[in-house]
C-alpha cells in the first residue's frame, strides 16, 4: 500500500504541474483569439449595423415621404427596440437632426455621444447622398453613422451603437467549453499517466516490494522474468542478479559438501558434521532454487486492459449528448408510433441488446478468448459507428446502432472477464476499481467533448470521431496478451436460465432490491440523462455542448461520491439506508422543475440525480449478496447476480421508453417530474419494505 499512495502523490503533483502549464497555454490561445475576434468581428458587425440602419432609414424616409415632419415621427423608439431584440450586439440607436441634436434614441447612450454627434465630421454625414456609413469608437461602443437624406435634402443622421463588449460575450461562451476541456484534460492526464508510466511503475514497484518481502521471509528462489528496460526494471534485474549469485553460491557449497561427505572417511565425516548442520539450518530457514511460474506478470497484464477499455467506452460516451438530436434529424414517420417514442427507439434498442446479450456473451467470450471477443466487439462497433455517421434515415440508423450495442456488449463482457481471469479473491476489488475507473473517466470526458464536437463539426462527423476512437481501441486490444489466463479451478460462466429468472422474479426479497431499487435507478438514469436532458436542453434553445456539460456534472458526481459512499456504506453495514437516501434524492431531483424551468434548476436536477445515484449505486449490488443468501444457496451466485443484472439492464432499456411516453402526455418538464415521482415512490416503498428486522445487517460475531 505504501508504494500505491506514494505513486498517487507523485501523479497528483505531476497532474498539477501539467494543469498549470495547460492553463497558461489556454490563456495565451484565448488572448490571441480575443485579439483576432476583436479585429475581425467588429468591421463585420459594423457592416451589419449599416444594413440594419439602411432598413430603418427606409422606414423613416417612407414616413417623411407621406409628409410627416421628420422631428415628429411616431414609433421610432419602438422600431429601435425591435432591432435590439433581433440584434443583441446593438446597444444604442439614435437619430439626430442636422445640428446634431438627438430626436429619437433608445438603449444605453455611450459617454461622449452628444459631443460626437455635434462633431463637424459627423454633421457632414447628413449631407452625403450616397449610402456611405462611418464608424467611430465612442466610449464603450462603436458608433456607425449614416445619412438620412431625402432626395438630396439632408434630414439628419442615424447612429447605431455596437457594444464593444459583445466580443467578450462571444468569447465567454467559448470559455465554458475551454473549462470543460480543462476538466477533461485533468482526467485525461491521470489516465495517460497511468497508461504510459503508472501501470508499469506500479507493477514494478509492487514487484520490488513483494521481492523484498519474500527475501525478508527467507525466500531466495530465483525468478526467470523479463524485466522492463527502465529504472525499475534495472533495479529488479540487479536484485535478480544478487539472488542468482546467492543461489549459485548455495548450490556450489551444497554440492561441495555432498562430494566431501561421499568421499570422506568416517573420521572426516565426523568433522564435516558442523557443516552439515549449518546447511540443514540454512535449508530450514532459507529457500533457494527456482520460483514457480504462477501468475507471471498478471498485474501488468491486468493494467493493460485499461487503455483499450477507456478508448472504446469513450467512443460510445461521445455520442450521449447529441444522439437524440441526431435521431430527431433523421426521423421518419412510423404509423402508430409517436415521434417522441421514435426518437427514444435507438437508445432503447441499444440498452435492450446490451441487457439481453451480456449474460450469454460472457460464456461466449470465455470460449473464444477474451482478447478475441474484445477484438470482434470493437470491430463490430466500429462498423456500427461508421454506419451511424453515414446513416440515410432512421431505419438504417437503428441497424447501425444495434451493431454498436452488440459490439459494446461484447467488449464490456469480455473486458470484465479479462479482469476476472487475472484477479483472485485478494485483488478482485482492485481489478474492478481499475475497470470501473476507466469507464467513469470515459463517462466524464465523453459527453462533454462529444457535445462540443457535434456543435462545431456536426453530428455525422462526431460519429466519425467515435468510429476513430473505436478503431484506436482495436489497436490497443491487439496489444493485449494473446495467451488467455483462465483459472484452472474456475467453472465456466453461463447465462441465467428461464427457470431461475421465473423463480427470482416472484421472490419478494430479491424483487424488493431489484424492482424497487435497481430498476428504478436505471430507469431514471437513462430516461433523464440519455433521453430527456439532451432533448430538453436543445428544445429550450441551448446546444449539444450544454447537454454534454450537464452530463459531465452527473459523471463528476459519480467519480467523486461513489468511492466515498461505497466505503461508508461498507463500514456502517447499513447499505439499505444509503440505497433509500439515494433513491429519495434521485426522486426529488426532477421535482425541482415544478419550481421553475430555468436552466439553473435543470443543473440542480442533474446534480441531485448524480448525488442520489452515487449514494445508492455501490450499496445496491452489495445488498443482494447480503440479503439474498438463501437464494444464492439455492440457485447459485452466478444465477442470482445474472438475473439481477439482467433486470437492472432492462431498467436501462425501459428508461427512454417511459420518458418518451411521459413526454407525449405532459411534455418535457412533466416527464422529468413524473419519472422522478416514480423513483421517489419506489424509494419510499423500499425504505418501508426494508424497515423490518429481517433486513437488519448481521451483527459481527464477537471473538
Amino acid at each position: 500500500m505504501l508504494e500505491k499512495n506514494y505513486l498517487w502523490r507523485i501523479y497528483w503533483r505531476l497532474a498539477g504541474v501539467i494543469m498549470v502549464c495547460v492553463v497558461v497555454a489556454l490563456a495565451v490561445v484565448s488572448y490571441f483569439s480575443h485579439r483576432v475576434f476583436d479585429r475581425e468581428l467588429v468591421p463585420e458587425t459594423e457592416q451589419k449595423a449599416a444594413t440594419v440602419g439602411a432598413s430603418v432609414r427606409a422606414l423613416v424616409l417612407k414616413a417623411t415621404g407621406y409628409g410627416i415632419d421628420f422631428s415628429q415621427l411616431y414609433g421610432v423608439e419602438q422600431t429601435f427596440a425591435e432591432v435590439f431584440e433581433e440584434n443583441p450586439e446593438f446597444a444604442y440607436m439614435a437619430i439626430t437632426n442636422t445640428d446634431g441634436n438627438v430626436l429619437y434614441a433608445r438603449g444605453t447612450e455611450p459617454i461622449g455621444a452628444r459631443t460626437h454627434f455635434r462633431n463637424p465630421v459627423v454633421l457632414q454625414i447628413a449631407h452625403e447622398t450616397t449610402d456611405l456609413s462611418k464608424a467611430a469608437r465612442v466610449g464603450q461602443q462603436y458608433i456607425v453613422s449614416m445619412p438620412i437624406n431625402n432626395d438630396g435634402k439632408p434630414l439628419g443622421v442615424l447612429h447605431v451603437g455596437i457594444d464593444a463588449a459583445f466580443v467578450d460575450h462571444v468569447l465567454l461562451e467559448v470559455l465554458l467549453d475551454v473549462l470543460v476541456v480543462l476538466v477533461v484534460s485533468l482526467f485525461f492526464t491521470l489516465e495517460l499517466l497511468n497508461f504510459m508510466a503508472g501501470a508499469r511503475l506500479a507493477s514494478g514497484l509492487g514487484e520490488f516490494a513483494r521481492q523484498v518481502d519474500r527475501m525478508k521471509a527467507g525466500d531466495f528462489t530465483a525468478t526467470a522474468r523479463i524485466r522492463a528496460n527502465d529504472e525499475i526494471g534495472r533495479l529488479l534485474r540487479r536484485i535478480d542478479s544478487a539472488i542468482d549469485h546467492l543461489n549459485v553460491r548455495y548450490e556450489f557449497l551444497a554440492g561441495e559438501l555432498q562430494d566431501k561427505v561421499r568421499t570422506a572417511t568416517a573420521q572426516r565425516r565426523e568433522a564435516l558434521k558442523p557443516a552439515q548442520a549449518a546447511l540443514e539450518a540454512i535449508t530450514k530457514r532459507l529457500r533457494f532454487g527456482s520460483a514457480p511460474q504462477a501468475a507471471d506478470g498478471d498485474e501488468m497484464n491486468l493494467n493493460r486492459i485499461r487503455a483499450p477499455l477507456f478508448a472504446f467506452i469513450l467512443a460510445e460516451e461521445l455520442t450521449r449528448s447529441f444522439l437524440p438530436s441526431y435521431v430527431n434529424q433523421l426521423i421518419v414517420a412510423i404509423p402508430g408510433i409517436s415521434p417522441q417514442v421514435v426518437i427514444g427507439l435507438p437508445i432503447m434498442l441499444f440498452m435492450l441488446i446490451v441487457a439481453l446479450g451480456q449474460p450469454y456473451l460472457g460464456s461466449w467470450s470465455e470460449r473464444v478468448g477474451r482478447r478475441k471477443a474484445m477484438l470482434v466487439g470493437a470491430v463490430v462497433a466500429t462498423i456500427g459507428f461508421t454506419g451511424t455517421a453515414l446513416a440515410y434515415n432512421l431505419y438504417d440508423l437503428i441497424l447501425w446502432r444495434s451493431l454498436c450495442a452488440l459490439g459494446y456488449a461484447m467488449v464490456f463482457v469480455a473486458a470484465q472477464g479479462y479482469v476476472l481471469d487475472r484477479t483472485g479473491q485478494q485483488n478482485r476489488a482492485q481489478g474492478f476499481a481499475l475497470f470501473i475507473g476507466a469507464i467513469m473517466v470515459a463517462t466524464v470526458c465523453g459527453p462533454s467533448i462529444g457535445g462540443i464536437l457535434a456543435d462545431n463539426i456536426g453530428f455525422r462527423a462526431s460519429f466519425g470521431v467515435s468510429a476513430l476512437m473505436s478503431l484506436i481501441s482495436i489497436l490497443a486490444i491487439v496489444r493485449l496478451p494473446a495467451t488467455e489466463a483462465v483459472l484452472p479451478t474456475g467453472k465456466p460462466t453461463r447465462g441465467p436460465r428461464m427457470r431461475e429468472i421465473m423463480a427470482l422474479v416472484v421472490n419478494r426479497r430479491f424483487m424488493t432490491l431489484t424492482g424497487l431499487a435497481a430498476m428504478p435507478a436505471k430507469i431514471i438514469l437513462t430516461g433523464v440523462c440519455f433521453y430527456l436532458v439532451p432533448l430538453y436542453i436543445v428544445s429550450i434553445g441551448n446546444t449539444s455542448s450544454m447537454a454534454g456539460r450537464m452530463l459531465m456534472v452527473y459523471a463528476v458526481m459519480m467519480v467523486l461520491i461513489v468511492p466515498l459512499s461505497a466505503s461508508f456504506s461498507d463500514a456502517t453495514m447499513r447499505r439499505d439506508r444509503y440505497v433509500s437516501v439515494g433513491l429519495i434524492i434521485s426522486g426529488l431531483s426532477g421535482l425541482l422543475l415544478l419550481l421553475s424551468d430555468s436552466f439553473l434548476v435543470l443543473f440542480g436536477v442533474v446534480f441531485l440525480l448524480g448525488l442520489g445515484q452515487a449514494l445508492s449505486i455501490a450499496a445496491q449490488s452489495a445488498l443482494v449478496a447480503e440479503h439474498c443468501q438463501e437464494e444464492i444457496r439455492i440457485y447459485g451466485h452466478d444465477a442470482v447476480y445474472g438475473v439481477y443484472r439482467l433486470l437492472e439492464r432492462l431498467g436501462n432499456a425501459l428508461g427512454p421508453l417511459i420518458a418518451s411516453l411521459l413526454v407525449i402526455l405532459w411534455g418535457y418538464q412533466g416527464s422529468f417530474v413524473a419519472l422522478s415521482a416514480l423513483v421517489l415512490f419506489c424509494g419510499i416503498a423500499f425504505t418501508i419494505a426494508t424497515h423490518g428486522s429481517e433486513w437488519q445487517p448481521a451483527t459481527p460475531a464477537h471473538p
Partner: protein
Amino acid sequence: MGTIRVRFIIVALVVSFFAVGMAAFLNYFKYKSTISGIVKSRVLVIGRNIENSVQASLSVGMQFMELGTMNQLLQREKASDRLIRGIDVFDQTGQVLYSTERTRVGEKVVNAWTEAAARSKSTEWGTEAADEYVAGISLKNNFDLTVGYLAMRYSAEEVDRAAKVAGREILLASIFSFLGIALVAPLALIVVIRRFERDLRALEAAASHLEDRTEPALPTGSAFDGAIGNLRSSLRDANGALDDLRAKLDSVS
C-alpha cells in the same frame, strides 16, 4: 535522461497538445459560426424588408402568384448589399416564382432548400453549399399559413476569407503556446519529480552493491529507506549463513 522521466514528459506533451488543440478548435469554430451568424443576419435584414412588402401586398388581397412588382423589388434589394448573389422566391413544391435572374423562374430549387425550410422550427432557415450559402425566410399570409419561401443566395467567400485569416492566427498562437509548453513543462516536471528520481537513484545505488556486498551510505529520507534496509539485512543474513557454511567446510580441509 531516465525512461520514466521521458514518459512523464510525453504525457505532459500529449495532454497539452490535446488541450491547446481543443482550445484552438473551439475558438476557430466559434469564430466561424459567429461570423457566419453576423453575415447571415445581415442578409436576413434585407430578407425581412422583402417579407414585409410581400405581406403588405397579401394583406390588401393580392395573390402570391401575381405580385407584379416582385422581380423589381428583388432586384432593388439585391443591389443594396454587394454580398448577395441572387434572390429567389419559390413555392412549396420548390418551383421558382420570382427571381433576380429571369432564367431561374420556373425552375426547381435543389431539394436541400425545401428540406431545410420544412425542417426549420422558426420562419428562418439556411443551407450551406461549397461556394454559396443560402439564408431563407418562410413567407406567411395573414392566417399564418406558409405561401412560399424566400431564398437569398450569398457568397461564401466573405465568411471563408475571414475564417481563413482567423484560423491562421489562432493556429499560430496555438503552435507557439504548445512550443512554450514543450520548453517549460519538461523543466517543471524535472523539478517536481526530482525527489522521486532521487529515491529511485538511492534504490539503484543500493541494488548496485548487492552482489559485491559493500553497503555504501545512502541519503536518508528516501521513501524506500525501509525497503533498502530490509533488502540489505536479508542478503546480509543469507550471505552470512553461506559464509558460515564456507568457513565450516574450509575448516575440515
